[in-house]
């Protein structure tokens, strides 16, 4: 830069300040905005990595906002579907990634912030208890109402919820009476099971309105059961672990 030929003394003196200013600009841009082209930072310069994982205060969402969003999600899933089963499958697929994420997040938020993350569930029962208590409390503010094992099939477990929050503001039309929009929650459950290494043959939501019929006079007309069917290899492993432990 410095050893500029004296004959052209004017040209470099005009040029250099411009280039250094440009360089400074580029440097500043590189430092503050993006270390690599294409990466954009939010306006407050905070990335997802600067947020605290354990901050759960004021993290509750209003029911109105949830209701609105959920209706839009159902509307989106309803486009170009052929039937109720197809629609439930789509709702299930929407919930699945949420389950994968919540599994890691909720285990990281162990009761004591200083301790290392909690234990991974390695057996079926701790996994289901994690779902009915930790997960349910996180999503709906209360634990699930019951957890049962099917008497007929050893691989089937049932979680029941007397009044699913997701169905609170939904009235199902008569011609689609089979539809249960809690299929979304079933998807979340499937995500948790699958993520933890417990493959399922599907998780589904079913109506079991107590004392149903036309009047619907039962105590919990909206009672829903989530049926979890674990894959054969999961039960096989459970048996082996049971023998060793």
């Amino acid at each position, binding site marked *: 830069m410095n050893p500029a030929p004296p004959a052209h003394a004017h040209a470099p003196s005009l040029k250099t300040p411009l280039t250094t200013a440009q360089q400074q600009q580029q440097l500043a841009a590189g430092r503050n905005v993006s270390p690599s082209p294409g990466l954009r930072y939010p306006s407050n310069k905070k990335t*997802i990595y600067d947020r605290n*994982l354990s901050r759960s205060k004021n993290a509750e969402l209003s029911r109105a906002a949830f209701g609105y969003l959920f209706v839009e999600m159902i509307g989106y899933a309803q486009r170009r579907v052929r039937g109720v089963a197809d629609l439930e499958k789509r709702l299930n697929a929407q919930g699945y990634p949420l389950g994968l994420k919540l599994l890691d997040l909720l285990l*990281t938020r162990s009761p004591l912030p200083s301790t290392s993350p909690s234990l991974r569930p390695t057996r079926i029962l701790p996994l289901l208890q994690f779902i009915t208590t930790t997960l349910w409390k996180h999503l709906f503010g209360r634990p699930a109402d019951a957890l049962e094992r099917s008497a007929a099939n050893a691989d089937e477990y049932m979680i029941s919820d007397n009044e699913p929050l997701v169905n609170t503001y939904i009235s199902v039309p008569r011609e689609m009476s089979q539809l249960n929009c809690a299929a979304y929650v079933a998807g979340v459950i499937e995500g948790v099971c699958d993520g*933890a290494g417990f493959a399922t043959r599907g998780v589904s939501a079913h109506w079991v309105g107590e004392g149903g019929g036309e009047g619907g006079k039962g105590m919990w007309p909206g009672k829903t059961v989530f049926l979890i069917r674990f894959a054969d290899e999961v039960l096989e492993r459970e048996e082996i672990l049971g023998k060793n432990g």
Partner: protein
Amino acid sequence: MSYYFVIIGTKDNPLFEHEFGTYRQGGDGISRFREDTRHMNQFVAHASLDILEEVQWAGGQMYLKTIDRYPPTGSTISAFITAANAKFLLLHQPNNISTTSNPSSLTANRNAPTSTTPAATDEAIKNFFNDVYDSWVKTIMNPFWRVDTPVRSPVFRSRVAASAKKYL
């Protein structure tokens, strides 16, 4: 010490790789794997996955400690498994060659027995894994992240490098 860190997805596919050296005992954070065996690192790390899959069901701990060794290069592999079955593997290899050629090795060696006891190393690796796990959970919280896709975020890489500098 030289380190090779890799995150492996549920389909045994690598999602993130990072190679670095120690910052302890005057280290500069640059890995010094022997050139003739360096290409083996990925293979050696992936070879430990079978052992990991057996160990993971023995208990609910995420940090599985040292699970495998590869004597020809003196490498050791420590593992960590997340709740959603992503695996963190850390291959560590002591580099004898560089410490003997290092002029400050005399002082470093004197300190070595106290600062690198197995228990202390174990604790450091555990802290490193926990720190990376924190960043990892933040990564997967991204609504656009899909399971088993590679992580390309430069911010995540710098976070891992910072954890490495802090603990290893």
